[in-house]
């Protein structure tokens, strides 16, 4: 029976439609062999778009669906679920990535981008025509979570997972739990002592019967998939192996120490905000006049991002030292005291005489070390003149930066980092604490600079996300797996040699067979079998061939 393929082409608002001529592509799609129906959608992933897929399946009697939109890495499961709701097996669905790998990377070449979009859809349609329905095997989920990082985010996530009745192991590289919070004196916006938050939390974590803490330990290796991860942890006593079902990344961030910037590292009177916190903590702030410089090392060419917490930290610390009778100037570019609490703090700071002076990015303050103090000269665009202040202490509001081993970790976990080096979520709005890889989640400042409340909100979020598959006890794994044609197998055993999971074995006839629950679907056996006796479901030789040959056709 000839296939009846429906093609749904997403405009993604302007993300695709501004660079790819979508109506033209729809007309083209209608001419492709096997295509029974094609339409465009403003957002195919919206409930309206999904309903249109379901309606079209019924109305046009479609038996396969192609969506041309963003990346299957984020949206394939959603569209597959929609197909299933309308009675089309999820393995009869195929995607063409015309946004992440087309419109967004060819923004200056709309004609070529349109041609490429047509080609990608032709390839997807060619594969779709050869797709076959499949059933998914279920696997058991190990009821245990690995939390990487024992800061406030990691601990809060660990507690929440453990309270749901699952085992948790926290791996922390430092000798003690607590993370960056250990270096803080008080916390904004309510001036609570950091130790009052931290100590009870550490107490709860270390005494919880379901939580194990490995300090001075580092992740060494990660293998496996959701439900069955094999973890190697380097502890002081050697390498320990763990078996967990889910993983939470809560490695936090580091504070930039900007050697050379504004005499930092050269003059002891220049400190960072977090070093000021420690001085406040020990009660040893020996300066009468303090100047703080915001965006020290951030919102620059090297680090273009806003570190989100520094304005609030500066205002908090300024208020704390003002209470001790000190005079404070805050030099800022744009004050980001967002939300209810922080804008109130800013008002309070202004009432209490803390002086806010705006400076321009292209005319940063200059610092001269003098015996009686640090001379700060800054051009103020507000009064259009250069203001000079001689301070006893200069405090730099430096950004949070990714941890030094973020790249190594990201490669081990096979999850991406963003352009700034922070761990990147699967989708900024719809999946803000998931990674694209199933079973791995991110929270806290590992993801981006944020305050404690925001970090804890994410920590509780990931605890819930990580617990779902464990509570369900089983997850369905993809039906993308190998199958040996017993009539063609010669029993040479090469497939067994190359399989990294021992997912193939010889049966009583001496011929190879796949153990479905163990197979992960890489396809190495299929590519290797000397007799070409192995079919890789959903990535068959014929499907790949059809896709490739379609790529070379002219439209």
């Amino acid at each position, binding site marked *: 029976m000839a296939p009846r393929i429906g093609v749904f082409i997403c405009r993604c608002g302007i993300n695709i439609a501004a660079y790819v001529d979508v109506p033209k592509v729809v007309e083209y799609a209608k001419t492709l062999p096997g295509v029974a129906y094609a339409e465009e959608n403003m957002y195919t992933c919206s409930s309206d778009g999904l309903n249109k897929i379901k309606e079209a399946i019924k109305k046009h009697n479609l038996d396969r669906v192609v969506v041309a939109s963003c*990346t299957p*890495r984020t949206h394939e499961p959603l569209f597959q679920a929609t197909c299933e709701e309308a009675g089309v097996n999820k393995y009869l669905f195929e995607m063409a*990535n015309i*946004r*992440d*790998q087309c419109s*967004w*990377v*060819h*923004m*200056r*070449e709309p004609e*070529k*981008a349109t041609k*490429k979009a047509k*080609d*990608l859809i032709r*390839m997807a349609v060619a594969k779709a025509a050869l797709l076959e329905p499949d059933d998914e095997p279920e696997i058991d989920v190990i009821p245990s979570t690995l939390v990487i990082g024992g800061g406030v985010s990691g601990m809060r996530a660990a507690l929440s997972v453990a309270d749901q009745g699952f085992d948790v192991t926290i791996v922390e590289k430092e000798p003690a739990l607590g993370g960056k919070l250990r270096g803080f004196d008080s916390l904004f916006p309510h001036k609570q002592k950091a130790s009052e938050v931290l100590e009870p939390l550490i107490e709860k974590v270390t005494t919880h019967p379901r939580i194990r803490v490995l300090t001075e330990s580092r992740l060494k290796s990660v*293998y496996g998939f959701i439900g069955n991860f094999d973890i190697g942890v380097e502890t002081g006593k050697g390498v320990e192996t763990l078996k967990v079902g889910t993983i939470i990344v809560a490695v936090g961030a580091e504070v930039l120490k900007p050697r050379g910037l504004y005499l930092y590292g050269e003059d002891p009177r220049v400190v960072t905000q977090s070093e000021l916190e420690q001085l406040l903590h020990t009660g040893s702030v020996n300066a009468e006049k303090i100047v703080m410089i915001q965006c020290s090392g951030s919102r620059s060419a090297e680090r273009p991002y806003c570190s989100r917490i520094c304005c609030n930290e500066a205002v908090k610390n300024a208020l704390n030292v003002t209470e001790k009778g000190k005079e404070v100037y805050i030099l800022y570019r744009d004050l980001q005291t967002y939300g209810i609490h922080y804008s109130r703090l800013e008002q309070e700071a202004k009432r209490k005489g803390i002086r806010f002076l705006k400076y321009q990015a292209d005319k940063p303050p200059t610092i001269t070390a003098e015996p009686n103090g640090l001379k700060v000269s800054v051009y103020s665009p507000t009064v259009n003149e250069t203001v000079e202040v001689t301070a006893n202490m200069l405090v730099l509001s430096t950004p949070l930066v990714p941890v030094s081993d973020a*790249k190594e970790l*990201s*490669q*081990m976990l*096979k999850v*991406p*980092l*963003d*352009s700034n080096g922070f761990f*990147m979520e699967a989708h900024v709005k719809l999946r803000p604490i998931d990674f*694209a*890889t199933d079973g791995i989640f991110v929270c806290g400042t590992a993801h981006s600079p944020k305050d404690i409340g925001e970090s804890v909100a994410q920590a509780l979020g990931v605890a819930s996300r990580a617990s779902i598959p464990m509570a369900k006890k089983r997850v369905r794994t993809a039906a*993308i797996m190998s199958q040996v044609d017993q009539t063609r197998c010669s029993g*040479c055993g*090469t*497939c067994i*040699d*190359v399989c*990294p*999971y021992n997912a193939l074995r010889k049966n009583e006839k001496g011929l190879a067979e796949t153990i479905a629950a163990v197979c992960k*679907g*890489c*396809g*190495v056996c*299929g*590519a*290797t*079998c*000397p*007799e*070409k006796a192995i079919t*890789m479901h959903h*990535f068959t*030789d014929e499907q*790949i*061939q059809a*896709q*490739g*040959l379609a*790529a*070379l056709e002219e439209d």
Partner: protein
Amino acid sequence: MSTFEPNIVGFLCNWCSYAGADLAGVSRIQYPTNMRVIKVMCSGRVEPGMVLELLEAGADGVMVTGCHIGDCHYISGNLHTKRKFALLQRLLAKTGLEPQRIRLEWNSAAEGQRFANLVKEFTEQVRAVGPTPLKAPTPDAAKLLNTRAALAAADGFRLRALVGKEEKLVTEGNVYGDKVAQDEFTEAMDEAVETEFQVHRIHIMLQERPRSVKDMAKQLGLQPKAVLGYVVALRQRGWVDVKEAVEGTPLYAAQ
């Protein structure tokens, strides 16, 4: 400035390189439009024959990308990719097509910029080599024959079995515990590649029409004795036989 726009196919593994390509998109890093992507779960799924088939069909270039060595989502899949790609390079060398038409690279999920650079570099690399000589309707007949022979050799039992066993033979040894040195293996592989390539070249020629050994030796630029050796091998496999004898010279044909 050449206006030639190469047709390039890229095989990307799902976990690292495809994710890296998505990251280039999310980061709005611009790169040339020439590559059409086929997603596979692991770069180890890509068979030398799949690449040769695309070249035969008129692709100007084919790139294969996987996770960095040591970072494979499937533990060791990319080690097999590496060995399969080495076989592909050996076969491509027989065809007379330029080695610059294929490329194997590792690209992580975090390397969006690197992915964009790779596409740009490879597009320029292929553009510099020029259009494929195999494109219809006027393909270079000799190179087309060679490519078809290389493809048949790549899909045949002998080379697939050899490359499939390579990792184990070189790193662990065979069932008797005998480990094969890499250079010994390479030598055996070179011999096998040459034999399979020639055998398939002759087989394809004999599928077209019956020919004599002398006739084929002339066309292929080989010694008649060598061609006869391959014909004997083909007869042993039952793929060809003597069709008729013309003035005492046997003409062979594919079965």
